[in-house]
């Protein structure tokens, strides 16, 4: 039982050596001349301006919630659309009911000013 894991243990050891060896060699032999351009974040998006640990509006939270409404709607709409023709009238009505319920929530959020940026 335990012996049958031997090849796996071997693979783990080899993989570790294979990964660490080139890193170790390059650390030993490669020349190092850092400058500001080389130390800049590479392919990590736009650099931030100012401190990042700040308070921000909880309006973002509301927006995210409203986004989730439509996200979930889309998740349900896609499979429904694929087999829609086999499901018949009931499925059509059901989906309208579902979208209608979501619209109620959306209308409520809109009337309560969740979409205004203040």
């Amino acid at each position: 039982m335990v012996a049958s894991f031997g090849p796996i243990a071997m693979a783990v050891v080899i993989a570790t050596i294979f990964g660490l060896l080139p890193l170790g060699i390059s650390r030993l032999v490669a020349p190092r001349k850092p400058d500001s351009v080389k130390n800049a974040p590479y392919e990590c998006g736009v650099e931030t301006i100012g401190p990042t640990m700040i308070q921000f509006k909880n309006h973002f939270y509301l927006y995210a919630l409203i986004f989730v409404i439509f996200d979930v709607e889309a998740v349900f709409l896609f499979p429904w659309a694929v087999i829609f023709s086999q499901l018949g009238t009931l499925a059509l009505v059901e989906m309208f009911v579902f979208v209608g319920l979501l619209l109620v929530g959306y209308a409520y959020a809109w009337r309560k000013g969740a979409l205004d940026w203040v």
Partner: protein
Amino acid sequence: MNFNLVLLMPEIALTSAAGLAILVDAFSPRGLSRRFLLWIAGGGIAISAALALRLLGTNTSAFNGAIAVDDYAVFFKLLFLAATLLVLLAADTFMEETRHRAEFVGLLLLATTGLMLLAAAMDLITLYISIEISSLSIAFLSAWDKRGLRSTEAGLKYFLLSAMSSAVLLYGMALLYGLTGHTRLDLIATQIGQGPNAALFLALAMLLAGFGFKVSAVPFQMWTPDVYEGAPLPITAFLSVASKAAGFAATVRVLQIALPTSQTDWTVLVAALAAATMTVGNIVALVQTNMKRMLAYSSIAQAGYVLVGVAAASQLGVSAVMFYLLAYTATNLAAFIACIAIFNLTDSEQIGDLRGLRWRSPWLAFALAVSLLSLAGLPPFVGFFAKLYVFWAAADRGLLWLVLVGVVNSAVSLYYYAQVIHDMYITGIGGGEPGVGDPVTTLGPRRPSPGLSTALTLAVIGVLVFGVLSGFFFGIGDVAARTVAR
């Protein structure tokens, strides 16, 4: 596929009323008045109750057996609707003072919808979703006073602990599904094998823990006093009756249908829960000085008495549980509504501040005294008969030690209930008639609002009528119990 929507009409009506209240309020320029909202909610509740009554005797199931439409479910649906109506009536001062009152009404109706579905759930997934519908709404309602520290704490505590208990419940359900390959309760019963099974025992324990949270049974009661104390009083009243009754409705249905005692003996487990719940609830209630906390521990103890009926695991036990929940709903609502009225007057929740209430508002003192005596289980009030039936059912199953624990506990509970009555009726500040410094005499002539008075009167009438006609109402429960008890 059986998509017979008629069978779901009570829930649909209530959800529509909730949506209507919230939407119309959002689109009306100055918001809806309390009176108008009460009409919408009352109309929704009345229509829903009428539709539920029409389903009486149907005894079928909808949506591939996921939702039962039997007398047992209808009984509980009507109970929840009545409780919600009384809570709404009693909340009128609260609604006058709060902002977002349409959302308050809407969320309360949605919570009720969740509880109604919970009483009807025949499928583990439906059961879980119903619990979530109600728990989420109740968590919002508990945190209603969002700038108040205690209310926020109550909401957060309820939310976190209900999430935790949902996880445990879900794990139990997953085990049950893994063991049997079914999520429908009646099909699970057919697949459960004979004999002891560690995984089945684990699933049972986890289900009981999840439901134990909902009904606040010891050792899952930790949230109860804090949430009861911090939440707005009408919500506490709702939480203590409707939510608890729904938890019991689901517990009994799952235990009776999915896990028949012939295959898994959960009697001892539930009996142990019952004994612990009664004892801890009553003993801790003895030392409370805050009225809300005292009622919270009292409601834990009451859950223990109901569990005695559950442990009996017979048709008699189920009917006794149903009658107890009916009695408890009326009684506890009367107690809480009287408290709402008193706190509106005094702005104090201390039991000591009730001193001399008899001279200040005789009717409130009388109502509170009646409900407390009924909670203590004294005849001729309904609480006595409820306890009688529950203990009878347990004795019938040979659980005599449990009956003994229950009776001793009832005697203990009389002490703290009677203490309140003593304060209201006998003691003014210097003993005898209240003097100038007494809290209740220094108040202005503010009277309870009409809605509050109506709700209180109805609840007290319930306590008296259910008590006098206990045989009749027990008979109703007995007929309905036949649809779930084996």
